[in-house]
């Protein structure tokens, strides 16, 4: 296990893209945790305090990312928004992955009518227009962060069921599972010892990238002013509050939007990096960077000598 972890770590650090993802994700996670733990004491200014003498100030040393129409410090406001903008997507993805693992495993192990029922239900939710459904649910339930999370989870779980079911079906066909069954192992034992460990890597890869996608949807809900309570710290809502001010002070929309982009990119680069690291076929090509495959094959031939 530890050898596997080491080689995955080596593969991540050997790839600039996934390294960028790792650094970005860690940075923002630490910042979020810091903000929550210190309950706002790490902020340079009080984000809720308007200061009309300083309104629409351009980025400077005093205000790193400038101030908004009300003279509130943009950097402080962005950091205040991080627990919402990273916490909700993380929670959504964790819950969806859990639902996916439970339903997917049940469907793959028991097959028959249960499988049919679960997969029909999944297909139905998959055919949903994702953004529209979360908008509709959030609008129906009324603006609150809990309702937004619910509206995201409702449309977020189906791909995980498909992913897990496919992976478990593959595992279930393996000999070690039939042997385990023959040895009269309980269902939970097989799931815990055989299914979950084999399914987890692909779920993890998908989920990593998916946190970014969930953030995109969440901040779009904020931008469209649906679901997120008015005047609460959220990056998409921050952009939408700028309104026509953006023709005069474009940095007020560009900075928060670029923050969203960097966080999403961080998660997707990391996910992409882990995926390639786990892909056995690509492994040699990643480990020797900046070499074409022909060069690599030539080097390998040279190493092993003529057959």
């Amino acid at each position: 296990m530890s050898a596997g972890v080491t080689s995955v770590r080596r593969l991540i650090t050997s790839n600039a893209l996934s390294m960028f993802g790792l650094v970005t994700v860690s940075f923002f996670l630490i910042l979020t945790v810091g903000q929550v733990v210190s309950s706002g004491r790490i902020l340079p200014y009080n984000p809720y305090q308007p200061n009309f003498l300083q309104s629409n100030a351009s980025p400077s040393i005093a205000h790193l990312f400038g101030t908004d129409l009300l003279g509130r410090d943009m950097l402080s406001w962005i950091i205040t928004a991080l627990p919402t903008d990273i916490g909700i997507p993380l929670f959504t993805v964790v819950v969806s992955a859990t639902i996916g693992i439970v339903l997917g495993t049940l469907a793959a192990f028991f097959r028959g009518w249960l499988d049919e029922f679960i997969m029909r239900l999944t297909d139905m939710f998959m055919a949903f227009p994702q953004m529209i459904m979360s908008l509709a649910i959030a609008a129906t339930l009324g603006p609150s962060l809990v309702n937004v999370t619910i509206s995201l989870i409702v449309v977020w779980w189906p791909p995980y069921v498909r992913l897990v079911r496919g992976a478990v079906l593959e595992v279930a066909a393996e000999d070690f599972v039939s042997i385990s069954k023959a040895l009269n192992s309980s269902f939970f034992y097989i799931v815990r010892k055989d299914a979950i460990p084999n399914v987890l890597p692909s779920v993890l890869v998908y989920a990593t990238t998916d946190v970014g996608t969930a953030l995109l949807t969440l901040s779009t809900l904020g931008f469209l002013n649906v679901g997120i309570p008015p005047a609460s710290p959220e990056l998409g809502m921050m952009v939408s509050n700028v309104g026509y001010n953006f023709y005069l002070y474009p940095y007020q929309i560009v900075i928060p939007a670029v923050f969203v982009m960097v966080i999403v990119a961080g998660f997707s680069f990391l996910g992409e990096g882990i995926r390639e690291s786990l892909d056995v076929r690509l492994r040699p090509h990643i480990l020797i960077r900046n070499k074409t495959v022909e060069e690599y094959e030539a080097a390998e031939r040279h190493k092993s000598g003529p057959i």
Partner: protein
Amino acid sequence: MVSLRDFLPYLGRRIIGAFVVLIGVALIIFFISHILSPDPAHLWAGARASKSTIAQVAALYHLNQPWYVQLYYFLKSYATGNFGTDPQTGRSILSELAFYFPNTLELVITCMILIVALGVGLGYISGMRFGSNTDKAIRIFYLSCWSSPYYLGGLLAVLVFSSYIPLFPSSGMTSQTIGPITSITGIYVLDALLQLNGQAFLSGLYHLILPATVLALLEFGIIARIMRSSILDTRWSTHVKAARAKGLEEGEVRRNHILRNALIDTNTMIAVTFGFLLSGTIVIEEIFAWPGMGYFTYKAIVSVNYPVLIPCVLVFTLGVVVANFAADVFYSLLDPRIALGEGGGSES
């Protein structure tokens, strides 16, 4: 290959499947709109409705009845093709859909052409130059585009290309000075072309460029990614080695043995993207004031106008189902080994 004999039963099965999905989606959205909301009559009538209006709305949509009676009326009116009238405009919802849907289709089809060109092209180059600096640059480009929120792309495009450098119009589908044209298909550019109205055609195209390009740039990443990984899957496989070994020209190997095989997987994703885009244009339509389905649906969502929202969701779902079906048909056309309904994994 697809023969008509295999195709018709398959089509029948898929239509039944689609029907089941649509009924399911309708039931779920019925549940959300009628049961999940604490006071549907109040929501439907609007925030400032008087008591008598609320009572009127409740009576009109049977909101005071138990839920199974409501479900009966709901299914009955939809089964007879009666989608009702829009409580806000008083027009029939079907005619409103017929106006808004082609506008979105115009945007989405133009966008898809750009997405396929960009995604397949860049993904191919990236995969064929795996590990090189070109590959890295392309990957950074498509991953950053894909990571951008819609509002960043849309607002930046408006700011740069219609405010700083006034190249393109920032809103609308056509110029105000051009009068309305007769609607044949509903798709503005196509109508103008069919009526040989050069001025309207050019104006329509001119208004289309900016939103379609922005949407394409924001969405092509997923196609490029799939294309790149399919290229990586095929380019070192044994059949490509065999093709080279038997002395085929490099160009032919790339065209017929690598590109064609890589397109099989990409094609599914193209269809999925198309289905997704139909409902994914909402932010771009808001920013560019494009009178399409996204704009229409958003208006319905914000005012919690369920009589309009439900048919909209059904149209989007139908779009996804049709796109998935097209993907499976293309799948078996591209890959003769796969019989209809076996491949793609987009069965629904």
